[in-house]
């Protein structure tokens, strides 16, 4: 499994740094945060570091009125009285996205526009099929990925997930870019059904021999390694680690919240504010929070040199890079050579997190809403349920997925 970088606000330098450090990698560019010429410039830099780019057209809310998105050439004017999907607007939009954007910036795949819908129903299928058909008329020379943007209600419904799977069986695409909305806009997900259904969906698509990328993800998505998906994408701010539709709605765009720097402890799968690292320092247990050497992250070294972490210059910049670098290692190593060994490794990692977070909590070191102890039960439950439901067939097919 790979980690792709989900481009968001202020991500340019981080992208350059990390792609360089990793000797390659894939970045999913964001029209919401970049103009076409900026994308072109970034693509050149990424290519120079042996990386690849993808473009997420972010057509999640076609009437979202997001100024930056609407300024893009491909964005249609939906205010006229006509039928977008049965007029020449759709073919025009698809041509622009493909030729002027994807081919222009040499993306490694053509991610099709897909919109958010509270329910997956016949209309959803028909309209997305129209998008796909227009894309295929262009005879794309790069792999085609359909965007499947799902409301939290849809992910929570096993019926919707399987109706989707049964319908997607006949889609002539190379892969799917899954964008799932989190329940109740929670960063970490404490609903085992949501997690299980997402794993189930990904597994169903993998068994169709399709590539699967899950966008807007965090370290909780490591469990998707058991579904052996191809990549998750993640980024700096929370709004690129979880999909929220408001991010793409000009009228409802999130106000800038007070910025806080978080340190990611990869063994605990938890993030801690620097003030809590100060508590750990004063109790003499700070070293236990240090990322294991195997992560090879020098971005957080300054926190563990002996000084009180609250007094050192550990900024957002280091925090983001540390998070993504550690996650990169975790993602790259999550899939083992068999289904059972992947399951065992994930289970061990979750149990380690459980032990560590319990210990830290007992000492007053709390990760607040980013403390993995909040979601351990749901994550373990999804992992075990997935094994029970899909394990036999998945284990048999592991090497061919």
């Amino acid at each position: 499994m790979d980690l792709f970088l989900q481009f968001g606000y202020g991500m340019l330098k981080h992208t350059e740094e990390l792609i360089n450090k990793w000797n390659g990698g894939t970045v999913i560019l964001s029209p919401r945060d970049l103009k076409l010429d900026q994308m072109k410039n970034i693509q050149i830099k990424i290519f120079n570091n042996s990386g690849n780019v993808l473009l997420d057209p972010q057509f999640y809310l076609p009437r979202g009125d997001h100024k930056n998105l609407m300024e893009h050439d491909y964005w249609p004017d939906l205010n006229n009285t006509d039928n977008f999907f049965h007029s020449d607007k759709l073919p025009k939009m698809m041509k622009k996205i493909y030729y002027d954007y994807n081919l222009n910036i040499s993306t490694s795949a053509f991610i099709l526009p897909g919109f958010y819908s509270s329910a997956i129903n016949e209309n959803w299928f028909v309209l997305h099929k129209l998008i796909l058909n227009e894309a295929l008329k262009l005879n794309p020379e790069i792999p085609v990925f359909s965007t499947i943007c799902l409301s939290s209600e849809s992910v929570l419904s096993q019926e919707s997930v399987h109706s989707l799977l049964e319908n997607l069986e006949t889609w002539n695409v190379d892969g799917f870019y899954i964008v799932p909305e989190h329940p109740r806009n929670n960063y970490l997900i404490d609903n085992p059904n949501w997690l299980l259904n997402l794993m189930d969906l990904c597994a169903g698509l993998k068994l169709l021999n399709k590539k699967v990328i899950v966008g807007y993800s965090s370290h909780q998505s490591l469990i998707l390694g058991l579904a052996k998906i191809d990549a998750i994408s993640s980024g700096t701010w929370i709004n690129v680690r979880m999909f929220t539709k408001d991010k793409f709605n000009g009228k409802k765009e999130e106000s800038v919240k007070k910025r806080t720097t978080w340190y990611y402890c990869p063994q605990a799968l938890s993030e801690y504010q620097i003030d809590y690292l100060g508590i750990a320092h004063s109790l003499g247990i700070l070293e236990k929070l240090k990322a294991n050497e195997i992560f090879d992250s020098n971005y957080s070294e300054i926190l563990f040199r002996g000084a009180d972490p609250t007094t050192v210059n550990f900024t957002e910049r280091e925090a983001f890079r540390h998070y993504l670098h550690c996650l990169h290692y975790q993602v790259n190593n999550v899939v083992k050579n068999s289904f059972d060994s992947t399951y065992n490794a994930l289970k061990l990692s979750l149990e380690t997190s459980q032990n560590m977070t319990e210990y830290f909590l007992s000492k007053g070191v709390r990760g607040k809403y980013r403390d993995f102890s909040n979601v351990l039960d749901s994550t373990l439950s999804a992992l075990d349920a997935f094994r029970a439901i899909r394990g036999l067939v998945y284990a048999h097919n592991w090497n061919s997925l």
Partner: protein
Amino acid sequence: MLDKSFVSKIVKDFSDLQNICELTSGGQKYVFKAFHKQYRNVVLKIIKPNPNVYRRTKREIRAARIISSKNVPIIFESNIEQENTEYFWIIEEFIKGSTLRFFLNNNYNFDTRKIINFLETFLNIEIELENKKLVHRDIKPENIIYNPSLDKYWLLDFGLARHLDLVSITQTNLAFALCTWGYAASEQFRNLKQQINIRTDLFSIGVVAFEMLTGYNPFIKDATNVPQVIKNIERLPIPDFNIDGDTQFLLSTFIKNMADNRLSRRPRSAKEAYEILQEVKNTVILS
């Protein structure tokens, strides 16, 4: 009971058959047992001309003729391609045994070894069907013959079989397709033709295996009408159950996967199911 004149007519019409005696009759079909010099014990089926029955019988014969399996009765002769005939007839291999339904009704004990044999037999039939692009679509205890002294199973009645490359003869606009409730997967009874393939049969095989082990069909049990059966199939997974010697619970999981109404969770092909069964078999301790 057929009237004597009809039986006399049959005896006269089929002079190469001896010892003709009635087995079953009902609706448009009469079934006799007989002896043929060349084919030995045979079954003679007489079908009254009727467009629906005729089409299905024709399909059954065509399907059965292209399958080469020792667990499907051989069709020796028929006049099904003839037009303007008084009745259609088929002479096929006589199978010694009783329907699986008979054994289930008599609480026959299907132990783990017999269940594995059943699954292997049926998955081998399905591999053959898969290669010929056929789906049986009516696997149920009534269409399975079992011979306990040989521990051998046969699959009968290809009347609902569908060739996946040919145009379906089931009406597309029907809300519900022809099926046997409790054994048909929802993609079949909901007439979702694009989704029907060999996995549809795998579902039925899983349900039959469950019934052989537990003595009941989980979707029919306690259901008093068709909507309840539909609800059970679409909403309730089959319950957990234990199998002797299945120390890692893999055989029961395998059967549950086969009988999972979620199409995507079943093995993707009969070949894949057979391969998984071989892996599972290695974990089962047979007494």
